[in-house]
């Protein structure tokens, strides 16, 4: 329904202002609250003579000196920084106002990391490297969801696809004795489940959430069944081994950055490659334009001669492959064996990362890094004996996603045709 085509200008502005205003106030309030929490929780509980020590090297190396930070001062500075952000946010009329909130939470996290290491030594490098590790399958899983949903097919089956691929990768790698064969088969398993999802949701027009639920339950049941039936009987089939990190010459020598970014396993490199490639390709190639048009307005795409079904099939299968890669990470990149239900909800965290990242690859990566960080922080704090129940940190990804989908800090823009069955003329 179109409105009056040119309403009095004053009204339009006033309205836009109230919307943006309300958001700015919410964000500003949250920033200030976070800042004050830092001051009170960390600054007030530390004493002036306490120092936090953070190590910046992987274990056993000493390229960089340790950082010694006065805990109380750091807490006050970081807390007041967040408050300052809040004050700025109050005045800003900026559509990207949530960045302020992100920054405030970043300061909070940093303050927590420093505060926890008061009178002790915190493995800062380990925290960051571990976060990156943990976010790899989440980001890849989010790419799986994103590839599907950008064409309008809801994918809540990332979890199931990952689990099945983890199994497929482990057993084939162990049977062939070759990790690359395992990786390939893991990706193929994902592609297979992607194809199943595509057929039942596109051809058979099954409700896409029901279809996703089917895949999740099926994958869990099937892998558990096969574990009991095959892996228990032939334990050799469950010893695939893991990929070793690949050092990139020269770059891997850089302190901190080098071991962090240029000495990863194949999964880490592929993750970064796909995220940035997709972020570019979705908006700058013919493929991307068509994919997005199908996700937003399939009928419009159809009327200009684009084959909606082909694009959907292709992307859902691509998505499956991406989930397959993520799944292979669990067995070949991390654990070195398959365990029942080993993805343990990571697929749903990937879904959350996709939503939190607003269906944009880089956004999803950011979300994945945050979620990975909140998991790793848990280990970090446990080592330092900090009295924060781990459950609450593990809950964080779900909580922030709730906040995001509820539109409390701005509503995400969903592909308009998401979840809708498309039927052509006849």
């Amino acid at each position: 329904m179109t409105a009056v085509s040119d309403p009095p200008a004053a009204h339009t502005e006033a309205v836009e202002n109230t919307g943006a205003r309300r958001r700015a106030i919410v964000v500003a309030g949250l920033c200030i609250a976070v800042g004050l929490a830092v001051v009170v929780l960390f600054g007030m509980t530390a004493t002036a003579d306490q120092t936090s020590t953070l190590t910046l090297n992987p274990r056993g190396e000493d390229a960089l000196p340790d950082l010694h930070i006065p805990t109380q001062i750091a807490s006050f500075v970081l807390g007041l920084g967040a408050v300052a952000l809040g004050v700025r946010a109050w005045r800003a009329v900026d559509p990207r106002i949530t960045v302020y909130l992100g920054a405030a939470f970043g300061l909070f996290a940093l303050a927590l990391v420093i505060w926890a290491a008061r009178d002790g030594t915190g493995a800062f490098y380990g925290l960051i490297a571990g976060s990156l590790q943990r976010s790899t399958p989440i980001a890849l899983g989010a790419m799986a969801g994103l590839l599907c949903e950008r064409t309008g097919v809801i994918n809540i089956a990332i979890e199931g696809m990952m689990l099945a691929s983890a199994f497929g990768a482990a057993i084939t790698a162990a049977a062939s004795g070759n990790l690359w064969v395992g990786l390939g088969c893991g990706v193929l398993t994902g592609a297979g489940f992607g194809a199943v999802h595509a057929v039942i949701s596109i051809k058979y027009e099954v409700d896409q959430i029901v279809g996703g639920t089917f895949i999740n339950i099926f994958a869990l049941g099937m892998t558990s069944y096969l574990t009991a039936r095959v892996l228990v009987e032939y334990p050799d089939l469950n010893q695939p081994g893991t990929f070793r990190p690949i050092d990139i010459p020269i770059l891997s020598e850089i302190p901190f950055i080098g071991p962090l970014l240029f000495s990863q396993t194949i999964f880490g490199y592929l993750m970064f490659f796909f995220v940035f490639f997709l972020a570019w390709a979705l908006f700058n190639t013919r493929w991307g334009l068509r994919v997005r048009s199908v996700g937003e307005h399939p009928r419009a795409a159809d009327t200009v001669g684009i084959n909606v079904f082909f694009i959907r099939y292709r992307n859902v299968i691509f998505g499956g492959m991406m989930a397959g890669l993520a799944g292979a990470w669990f067995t070949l990149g991390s654990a070195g064996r398959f365990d029942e239900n080993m993805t343990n909800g990571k697929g749903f965290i990937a879904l959350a990362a996709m939503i939190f990242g607003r269906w944009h690859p880089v956004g999803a990566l950011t979300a994945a890094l945050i979620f990975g960080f909140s998991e790793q922080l848990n280990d970090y704090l446990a080592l330092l004996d900090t009295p924060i129940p781990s459950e609450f940190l593990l809950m964080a990804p779900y909580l922030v996603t709730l906040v995001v989908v509820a539109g409390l800090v701005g509503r995400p823009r969903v592909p308009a045709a998401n979840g809708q069955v498309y039927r052509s003329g006849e």
Partner: protein
Amino acid sequence: MRVELRGITKRFPGVVANEEVDLTVEPGQVHALLGENGAGKSTLMNILYGLYRQTEGEILLDGVHTDLHSPADAIAAGIGMVHQHFMLVPVFTVAENVMLGVEPTSRAGVLDRASARQRVEELSHRHGLDVDPDALIEDLPVGIQQRVEILKALYREADCLILDEPTAVLTPTEIDDMLDIVRRLAEEGRSIIFISHKLREVRAIADTITVLRRGRVVETLTPDACDEQQLATAMVGRDVQLVVDRGEAAPAATVLRVTDLRVRDDRDQLAVAGISFDVRAGEIVAIAGVQGNGQSELIEGIVGLRRPTAGHVLLDGDDVTRATTARMVDLGVAHVPEDRQRDGLVGSFPVADNFVLNLTRREPFANGIRINRRAIREHAEQLVTDFDVRTSSVDTAVETLSGGNQQKVIVGREMSHAQRLLVLSQPTRGLDVGSIQYIHGRIVEARDAGLAVLLNSSELDEVLALADRIVVMYRGSLIGEMAGADATRESVGLLMAGATA
């Protein structure tokens, strides 16, 4: 391009949409396809555009038999179509929408945006379309969006352009611009198929007119060889009586008073910018206007579906501005919504339940929280008889009924509980002539029974036929008011176009 359709028949399960249709469109000609809603115009054009496949018959383009299996085929053959519901991706820019499907790319499929932009700009300039290639579609008014659709066809070098009801959503000024553009495109040698059910436009623009009725061609003529009455008769198949039999109104006390009402639409824009008017018992007041000038928001603001941001709605002197829809029903206000399938009925529910959709809070249909199925059934059986609803039983799902019968269910339901005010939005849109006449008759009866009736219609004929008083709405404001008896097509039409009297 010379477009020839020969013996086209299209059958859907249970329905014949087109039967033995022959149609020839010459290059450089505007060929109008005239017909009522449901006459099979859109189906025929969707066949020509490759969206549907004809059951029988053949298509010849410049004398060559051509099979069109998909829009891609049609586009390749030089056919372009501007759909009634625009086929534009709202979050894309104009240039992105125009190039979609025929994107200029460098090696490896990377988009060449610059060259697409440039061509859009050039085409826009050459045809006097005045469209900014970088604007987002969702920010553009409908009239401009339509030009983007035309650009899409031109970008693909269409020799034949199909325009499906292009004027339905436009203001009179936009319509004039539109017709100019169409004429120019034809003069450059394109063949244009112009679908419409509006007699006046068709006569103004067309070189040839083909009238469709019930899926068949009933007549092909030229505009000079016919007058509107003739066309109307051909379109509906009998002498149409556009005038409703009704006596003088006997207005009594004021029932509805609206003062300085302001209402915002879904995009938070001020759609109703301070409107005041009265409706008295025993009269029909019509709101005339081109669709999209705030009428829907006004109606929703009155019946409690949308909260006004300022102003008052008074019912028999009581302020009901903030009353909920449920409360308004309790107060004896009935509302026939504009989009009947979406808003008026629960399609999967039986006819009987739809007759009490907004009445389940009251006796005898409910006692406390318990529903009285027998009372609902008896009520439904009564109304089916009273309103001549053709259905096999009151247990039938209402979605299986024809459009006219669905509308009778809604009108029946609303009239059964209207105590003071009856509000009707586009009550006869898309209905066959028989149903239209029936519903018009009931509206007059309701008036004569002493109800205040507020009619929102964008059909000028309906407004002129029914209204005792007409208010004209333009860009969120009332810009004119007149007695029904004094109103002429011209005087109301001018106001609808925004010309103040």
